[in-house]
């Protein structure tokens, strides 16, 4: 399989896998998925990077769009909304109009989702938006080094035109590194404080209560950063409340990746994390 697939294929699957890892450790599934026995799960998701994950209906299907389209980053924001505020948001969202920003706050029980292009619920106060984490996966294809005439011209358009003749170098190494990265991410999501909230929400959900709900929203742009970091554009400049944590990049031609994290601690012990996972794609050597 490694000989037939391209690096971009691996990266796309890595996007999906990382998204599933993140959401699987933050968002409770809807419906009765939790009661399904382990043997009934679809194990197709486990093939990639040899890590079997629990599949949860209604959670994270949006990330599969990045399997085919890596042109925009995958941004997953995890936020907390107390149950009563979430109920208010649901009522307000029905009658609200779009405000600044390009994300919509979902108020479904057990988690919600939104994608770019929708408005935000007009619920006042930043209590509703209690960002805990932001995970960003980004793939960047760098211009070819030492390009010949066939590789002339930077930009993804020129590179993608000759993709059919490339990317048979070092796929195994890239796949192995992505496998390590996915496992590291799986462990890391369980170390962060937000996982404790997820765990508490899971216990309360099982008991018929849902005092705290973790919600998520998915974006395609790095603009409209959350409150506090003051960044704009693709540049990653955390604000004073933010901290960075960076994994070493999967930085071996023709693909590279980097991971960083921003966090913030506020008076009420809210943490805001941002993890940037990107991949630098290099042109293929024929």
């Amino acid at each position, binding site marked *: 399989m490694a000989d037939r697939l391209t690096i971009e294929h691996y990266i796309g699957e890595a996007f999906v896998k990382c998204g599933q890892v993140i959401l699987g450790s933050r968002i409770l599934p809807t419906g009765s998925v939790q009661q399904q026995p382990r043997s009934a799960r679809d194990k197709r998701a*486990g093939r990639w990077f*040899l*890590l*079997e994950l629990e599949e949860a209906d209604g959670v994270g299907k949006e990330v599969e769009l990045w399997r085919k389209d890596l042109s925009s980053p995958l941004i997953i924001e995890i936020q907390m909304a107390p149950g009563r505020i979430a109920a208010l948001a649901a009522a307000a969202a029905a009658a609200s109009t779009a405000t600044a920003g390009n994300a919509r706050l979902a108020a479904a029980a057990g988690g919600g989702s939104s994608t770019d292009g929708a408005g935000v619920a007009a619920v006042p106060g930043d209590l509703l938006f209690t960002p805990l984490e932001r995970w960003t996966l980004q793939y960047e294809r760098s211009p070819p080094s030492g390009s010949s005439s066939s590789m002339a011209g930077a930009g993804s358009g020129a590179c993608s035109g000759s993709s059919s003749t490339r990317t048979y170098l070092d796929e195994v190494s890239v796949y*192995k*590194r992505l*496998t*390590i*990265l996915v*496992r*590291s991410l*799986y*462990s*890391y999501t*369980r*170390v962060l404080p937000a*996982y*404790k909230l997820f*765990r508490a929400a899971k216990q309360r959900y099982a008991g018929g209560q849902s005092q705290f709900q973790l919600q998520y929203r998915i974006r395609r742009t790095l603009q409209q950063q959350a409150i506090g970091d003051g960044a704009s554009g693709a540049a990653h400049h955390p604000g004073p409340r933010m901290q960075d*944590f960076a*994994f*070493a990049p999967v930085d071996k031609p023709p693909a590279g990746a980097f*991971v960083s994290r921003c966090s913030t601690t506020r008076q009420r012990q809210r943490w805001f994390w941002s993890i940037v996972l990107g991949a630098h794609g290099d042109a293929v050597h024929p």
Partner: protein
Amino acid sequence: MANCETHNLPVLELEPHQIREALRCVLHTIIFTRALGYVIPKDVDSELFDVTYVQCGDPGVEAKVESRITDFCTQVEKKPAELHQLQLSFYETRRKQAWFGTQDERLYWETWVVSVLVLQPDIALLQQQQQQHQQHQLQQQGSFGALTGAAHHHHHHHHQSQQQAQQLTSQVRAARQARLQSALEEQLTLVVRRVNDRRDHIPPVLSTSAVTFPFDITFSGTSTRGSLQGGLQAVGKMLMKATPPPVLG
């Protein structure tokens, strides 16, 4: 060991009853991130700490880790005042040609060193503090009682000092637990970071099992791995297989 990537993790200061669980957190995290085979991860909520770590789901691995941790704890009990180090090492096995035949050789490519410093339990320390505190209180109350002649004041102050000592105990214990919690989380974060920092030294994946790379866990007091052990085995084989010299005429 040539070309062996070594990761020295920060020292963990642990009470004796915490060592086992802390080592489980760290060792399983390392093993899981290095298990590049098909894995069904197993999330484990730590019994002593507010931490969730991940196991690779292999019962053999769990048994091996548990056994070595038990041995390590036994070692620690003998010399609790020393700094103890445990090493988790990944290796690959190669056949090596020797004079007397082929021999399996272990080539270690990565070692994680976990250092543990044993702390005195809170109870022992705080009991000393409480006794000192109570003695001080009694001395003060003794002089006060001589002045006033009221015995019930002595009982009242003694009860107060007991409450204060208990509060002190709780505060110290909570502070220590918080420090340890933070240290453990930092160590797990460091493991996750280090796992991704360097990957060129990782050998090819040849095994189909979940834990693709064999490992061993050693600590001071156990037999040394590597060439010394292999050499002794080789000498043994030689003595077993060697034919006696012909009798000289």
